[in-house]
């Protein structure tokens, strides 16, 4: 009968663990915005995409709905995050108020098709610029440079940089680029998981010493459970330039967005957007990376 009781006890523990998991899945997000000032009567060259959007008074922007701090949608249906703020800033320059933006969810797999089919005018969705993607869409930016980082338990001060995980157990998603980097370059022992969120429990139970992937994903986890986890450091050790996706060959629009990004950096709205969102976790405010005008 004792064993039976023990099992009941573990059932309870598991049930509460599962509950905690599901609760933490919907928490997080700060809900603050940088409230950009909408341009009153912007003028644009006739026939340009900017003029079209400005006249229409609305813009379709795709972002991620499940990436805390960058693009996340809560139960109220309003997207929040740094990507969202960048979208609002651009819209404001076109004379479009934040509530006139039509948001839609662009997951990793549908970003290129959505741009090509014109279902969105812009994609701002933790979208890494790379050559293969440049074949089918154009990129303004980069507006942020993400990179691989390490997340550890709050009380862990032994791991600060990737060199510290040599021979230690690190959780990441099987077959992903960060997983390969941490094993091949830094000699960590990989604990393979199906998703990054699956790594959280082993980290909590100290079965692994760290989780590694892009810093923005990790920052999202820290944002949900700041009392349990922290980033090992604000420094990253790879480069993932995030760009704004738009229709290929719309160079005029691309150059205009690039100009605006530099403008945001100059007038402080870029920093403000960061501090209202991702800056809650990643304290070092980023400099606008050098714009890639190709």
């Amino acid at each position, binding site marked *: 009968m004792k064993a039976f009781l023990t099992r009941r006890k*573990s059932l309870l523990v598991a049930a509460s663990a599962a509950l905690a998991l599901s609760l933490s899945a919907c928490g997080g997000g700060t809900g603050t915005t940088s409230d950009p000032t909408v341009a009153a009567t912007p003028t644009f060259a006739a026939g340009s995409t900017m003029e079209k959007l400005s006249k229409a008074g609305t813009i379709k922007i795709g972002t991620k709905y499940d990436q805390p701090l960058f693009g996340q949608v809560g139960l109220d249906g309003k997207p929040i995050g740094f990507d969202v703020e960048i979208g609002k800033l651009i819209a404001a320059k076109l004379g479009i108020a934040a509530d006139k933006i039509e948001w839609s969810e662009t997951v990793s797999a549908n970003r290129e098709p959505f741009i090509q089919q014109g279902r969105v005018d812009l994609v701002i969705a933790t979208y890494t610029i790379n050559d293969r993607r440049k074949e089918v869409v154009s990129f303004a930016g980069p507006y942020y440079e993400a990179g691989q980082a390490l997340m550890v338990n709050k009380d862990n001060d032994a791991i600060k940089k990737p060199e510290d995980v040599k021979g230690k157990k690190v959780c990441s998603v*099987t*077959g992903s680029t960060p997983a390969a980097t941490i094993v091949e370059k830094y000699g960590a022992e990989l604990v393979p998981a199906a998703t990054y969120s699956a790594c959280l429990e082993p980290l909590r139970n100290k079965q692994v010493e760290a989780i590694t992937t892009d810093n923005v994903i990790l920052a999202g986890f820290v944002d949900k459970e700041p009392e349990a986890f922290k980033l090992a450091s604000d420094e990253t050790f790879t480069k993932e330039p995030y760009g704004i996706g738009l229709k290929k060959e719309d160079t005029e629009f691309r150059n205009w967005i690039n100009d605006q990004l530099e403008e945001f950096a100059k007038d402080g709205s870029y920093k403000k957007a960061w501090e209202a969102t991702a800056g809650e976790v990643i304290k070092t405010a980023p400099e606008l990376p050098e714009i890639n005008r190709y």
Partner: protein
Amino acid sequence: MDAILENLPLYWEGLLRTLFLSTVSGVIALVLGTLLAAARVSPVAALRGFSMTYVEVLRNTPLTIAFFFAAIVLPRLGVTFEQFEVAAIIALSAYTAAFIAEAVRSGVNSVPVGQAEAARSIGMKFSQVLSLIILPQALRTVIPPLINILIALVKNSSVAGAFFVLELFGYGRQLANTYGDQVLAVLLGVAFFYLLLTVPLGILASTVEKKVAISR
């Protein structure tokens, strides 16, 4: 096809890990299951109750939950393992033992009551009746269902791939992530290697069945 051919060593490693998990869990489950079945038919009420509870709980719980207990909940209760394989073996053998217990019990029930009565009448104790008279006959009749359970065990071990153990399925997923354009081939490869393990088991089942079959 390149994805499979270039990564045969990975498949091989996965196959060995799957074989290891299945064999160790299978042996533990066979022993544990037989003990549970013996407890189920024993004269001690507490043993019968424990065995029944164990079997009903484990048999009616999804395997994933069992894995979740072993890999996530146990460490939280302070029982930590150096390797996730240990958690996988605990989950697989605990789960499979419940099914083996039921199979063995059905075998025990198939032995005519007269056998036990005759054994008792010549002064055998319960343990002797069970180990010398009932179980040898019972186990023979349950070879086919036992092999079925072991085949299921081999396939069930793939759940370990979702709980941090790189076995056949785990490597399959890793390859599917890397070769996004050849996912179908990669998974067909995984299926093929599972068949390498399970088909011989099935053949073994029919051979053994013919050898030990008893006519009543």
